[in-house]
């Protein structure tokens, strides 16, 4: 290659791209979770790869077909696949098949301490410690998302027409329904567990204040919201789906009701596809349709920092190592950037 051209390309790279490593896996990165100093990534070719600074990733051939869902569980990851298998995988490549649902996909997974949860179709399956047989929770339509509250006492299950929140009392789950017309996907509890929020099939997110089931409809997005993340102490719920990262304040007794969101990290013509909080900071990483990633404070007067330049493929996942030292960015073409967040690392 022409030396000048090489120099030019080098100068167009971001600081993090220059000091990081780039891996081309060749299959879409679908999910990423952090386990201690490693970041596990699920791919569209069924592999789970464990990335760690300074070494090549370890590849585990986990599923036949797409890794649809993933979460961390103790020192392992739990994965759900297009092959109908619900797996527990360790970073040394040990695969434990928890259940095989055959030709039904395992769409969602969740965990809390020693409890493993997955959904397949309309049913949620819960495995608790020392029990071989799962408890099952039935729903009127296919499950779109699963989330535990921070104590593991409540499990939110999103579906068509709203969310069922299951509460655990004396080893029995009881249901409470939160209703809103339309199909609900990814679901989350606010960190203070006062709200639940879902991403809908329409271009909107919907929330409920849990104590009185008051509705919060957050609309005006030009595309579907595929990702959200809680940021800072306020806290803000930061969402993708727009040309900016849209940050809804959830402080006070009313949360975002009747208030406007803050918008940061403008991507110009590109739409945000993935957002991830920087732990302990009032800042968020925002990935866009062209593969670029910006880091922005939740402050409209501050300028965002370019973390990754355009790759031409939409950002599908971002993960930060648990000690806040490493960032991993993956896209739909399977390009992975692993880099240290801080210069003197």
């Amino acid at each position, binding site marked *: 290659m022409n030396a000048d051209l090489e120099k030019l390309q080098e100068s167009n790279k971001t600081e993090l791209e220059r000091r990081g490593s780039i891996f081309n896996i060749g*299959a879409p990165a679908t999910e990423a979770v952090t386990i201690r100093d490693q970041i596990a990534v699920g791919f569209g070719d069924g592999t789970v790869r464990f990335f760690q600074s300074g070494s090549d990733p370890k590849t585990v051939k986990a599923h036949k077909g*797409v890794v649809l869902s993933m979460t961390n569980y103790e020192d392992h990851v739990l994965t759900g696949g297009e*092959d109908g298998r619900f797996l527990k995988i360790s970073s040394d490549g040990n695969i434990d098949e928890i259940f095989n649902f*055959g030709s039904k*996909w395992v*769409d969602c997974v969740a965990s809390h301490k020693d409890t493993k949860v997955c959904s397949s179709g309309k049913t949620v399956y819960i495995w608790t410690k020392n029990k071989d047989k799962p408890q099952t929770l039935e729903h009127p*339509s*296919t499950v779109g998302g699963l989330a535990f509250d921070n104590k593991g006492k409540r499990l939110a299950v999103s579906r068509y027409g709203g969310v069922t929140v299951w509460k655990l009392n004396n080893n029995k789950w009881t249901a409470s329904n939160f209703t809103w017309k339309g*199909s609900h996907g990814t679901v989350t509890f606010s960190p203070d567990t006062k709200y639940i929020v879902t991403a809908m099939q329409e271009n909107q997110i919907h929330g409920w204040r849990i104590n009185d089931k008051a509705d919060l409809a957050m609309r005006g997005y030009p595309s579907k919201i595929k990702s959200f993340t809680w940021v800072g102490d306020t806290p803000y719920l930061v969402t993708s789906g727009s040309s900016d990262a849209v940050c809804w304040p959830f402080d006070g007794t009313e949360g975002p009701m009747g208030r406007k969101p803050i918008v940061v990290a403008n991507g110009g013509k590109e739409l945000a596809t993935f957002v991830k909080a920087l732990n302990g900071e009032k800042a968020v990483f925002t990935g866009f349709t062209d593969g670029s990633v910006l880091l922005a404070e939740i402050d409209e007067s501050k300028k965002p920092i370019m973390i990754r330049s355009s790759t031409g493929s939409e950002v599908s996942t971002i993960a930060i190592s648990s000690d806040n030292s490493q960032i991993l960015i993956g896209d*739909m073409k399977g390009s992975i950037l692993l880099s240290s967040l801080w210069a003197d690392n």
Partner: protein
Amino acid sequence: MENTSQVPVTVLTGFLGAGKTTLLNRILTEQHGRKYAVIVNEFGEQGIDNDLVVDADEEVFEMNNGCICCTVRGDLIRILSGLMKRADKLDAIIVETTGLADPAPVAQTFFVDQDVADRTKLDAIVTVADAVHLSSQLVDHHEAEEQIAFADVILLNKVELVEDNDIVKVNDRIRKINPFAKIIKTTRCDAPLDEIVGLNAFSLDRVLDIEPDFLESDHDHEHDDDVTSLSFVSDTPLDMDKFQDWFGNLLRTKGQDILRSKGILNFKGEEERYVFQGVHMLMDASPMGPWPKGKDRSSRVVFIGRDLDNMNLKEGFENCKSA
């Protein structure tokens, strides 16, 4: 805009026993050198075992978008977005529906959901009909009528079991409901796969294939809720504003009864042909190049649906003619 990376999706309908499973097994096992994923319904016939088969549950959802007849297949949105994350690229996806399913929500999913529309495209609705039983099914089940009405291709299967003059009768019955579908007569669904998959039937330029032969209004029928078709031709150029007012209002108020609509339009003062095609209230429309030289610039529209006689379609269309 046409996006070449969109995976074509064929929707396969037909009553239980018509031969859908035979066709699916052919698609999955024949050496065609292509990779097809098949989405089957949970109540389907047994006998398909393949890594590329996905179980679906035909969940029909109302969209929360204010459109009263806008139902979509929620499970299809989920499954198609999952399939698009595969490392290996699929050549086509085939969606099987149960015999009693209404094909509209499947078709509407491709109009309404942006993610689905970005990555996949509705290729054609293919209906497998049982030549022996179709006539009685059409009397007993309105779903059978709808499956014929929505179809771009109809495989009239099991023709070996029916006398020739009965085939002609069934053929005429189909034509009365749906004048533009391609009818292929088969034994054990033995039609060439390239006449079933990869047709691009929902592409707007295919609207130009509307055969003028079928565009003769003919609607003697027994029940008011029968599915019929009506078509109109005009050699007088249409007024664009008048047409948009009439047609927009028609789909808004009568869209539930209009199963499919298609047309080629000659607007006064416009050099290009306009084409549209719709499913219930949803439609796609766009200019489609200049009129071919030496041919008549006539506007042609076709409606397939219920209760078409009470929509004043002829009068409405006539009123769109430019003064």
